[in-house]
């Protein structure tokens, strides 16, 4: 059965394509995304308090390395096959190496409604994966030679709402613990799915607004926006199997790998590689990859993980 939150997303897409006047007021959209980011962070933080940090270090390193490697695969494809300018190819590559919190939220809702459990410290890996692709993207566009204001880039990344609220939520959850969070649970955890539904309605509208831009950029971007996440998901599944994670945990890693950023990376790229056309990378990540992952990708990665676990006997 189709999850209602997916129907909200479809409603947004249909309304957007029909050029409806509908839009979430921008303050409400901000509020909704802040709630989601904090809720995800808090959940992860509670779990972290119960985990020896040293045990997670190898996974953190593996995920960080994945964030460095994925753009390096995307970049030559975009350059050679897509014929994009260097700055544009680097920027798109960075988007695809990083993560989308929205996609992650849909994935955990999907797993929850299918009664699949997963390792609850995943939000930590989510934050870890935000950053490395941005660094690689900037290096791909700029090289090491030119003087680059890394301080400003770091400021943009770590004070941007994505990383700040995820890390903040993790810290608060970790410090407060499950009992401490009990009084704020109705706001952040019980309302999670309703908030996610509103978020997806707006994402549907935004994605539909990008569709017209697709005509300008042609078929290559469309193919890339579907094939790249499929390719990336294999890395996530590989890491999941390597660390012997559950099927749910492996699925989440596949989703993290497959999703493309649309908050942290665009902001950082606008500051550090301004000559890259932001509309190009956002059309790919928001107009193609986000809907693909939400509608097709997540259930598909789950099936792939089930299969991979049955083959490896996990």
């Amino acid at each position, binding site marked *: 059965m189709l999850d209602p939150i997916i129907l909200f997303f479809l409603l947004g897409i249909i309304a957007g394509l029909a050029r409806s006047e509908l839009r979430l007021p921008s303050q409400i959209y901000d509020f909704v995304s802040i709630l989601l980011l904090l809720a995800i962070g808090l959940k992860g933080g509670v779990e972290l308090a119960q985990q020896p940090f040293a045990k997670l270090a190898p996974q953190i390193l593996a995920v960080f390395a994945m964030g460095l490697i994925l753009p390096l695969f995307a970049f030559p494809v975009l350059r050679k096959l897509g014929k994009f300018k260097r700055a544009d190819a680097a920027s798109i590559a960075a988007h695809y190496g990083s993560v989308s919190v929205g996609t992650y939220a849909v994935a955990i809702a999907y797993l929850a409604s299918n009664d699949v459990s997963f390792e609850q410290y995943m939000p930590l890996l989510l934050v870890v994966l935000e950053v490395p692709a941005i660094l690689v993207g900037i290096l791909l566009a700029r090289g090491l030679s030119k003087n680059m204001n890394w301080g400003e880039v770091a400021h943009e990344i770590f004070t941007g709402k994505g990383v700040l609220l995820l890390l903040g939520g993790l810290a608060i959850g970790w410090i407060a613990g499950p009992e401490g969070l009990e009084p704020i649970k109705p706001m952040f955890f019980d309302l999670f799915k309703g908030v996610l539904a509103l978020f997806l309605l707006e994402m549907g509208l*935004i994605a539909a*607004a990008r569709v017209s831009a697709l005509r300008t950029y042609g078929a290559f971007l469309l193919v890339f926006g579907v094939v790249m996440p499929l390719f990336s998901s294999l890395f996530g599944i590989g890491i999941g199997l390597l660390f012997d994670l559950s099927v749910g945990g492996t699925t989440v890693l596949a989703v993290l790998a497959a999703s493309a950023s649309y908050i942290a990376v*665009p*902001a950082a790229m606008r500051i550090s590689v301004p000559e890259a056309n*932001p*509309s190009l990378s956002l059309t790919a990540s928001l107009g193609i990859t986000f809907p693909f992952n939400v509608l097709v990708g997540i259930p598909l990665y789950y099936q792939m993980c089930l299969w991979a676990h049955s083959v490896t006997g996990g």
Partner: protein
Amino acid sequence: MSANIRTLLTIISESSLENRLVRDVQKLGARGYTITECRGKGARGARDAEWDYDSNIRMEVICSRETALAIEKWLQEKYYDDFAIVVYSDDVNVLRPDKF
């Protein structure tokens, strides 16, 4: 020119530039500024504030003509190539010219 005339410089640009613009105009001698959020359409397409990336700001600075020219020159060199930006200026009457 009357002693009460100052230049009102208006900059319309991407909100992602806000921090930089604030820093730049102050460095170039502006004593203050006013920022409002706005939306519109121009050479770089509709910027309808649907989305963080699509949102615009309008920054207004009242300053001396020299400062305004310096800011215009700086913005042109720095941002015109890569960002959605429109800058225009006008003379305005102010009550307390020493303030600007």
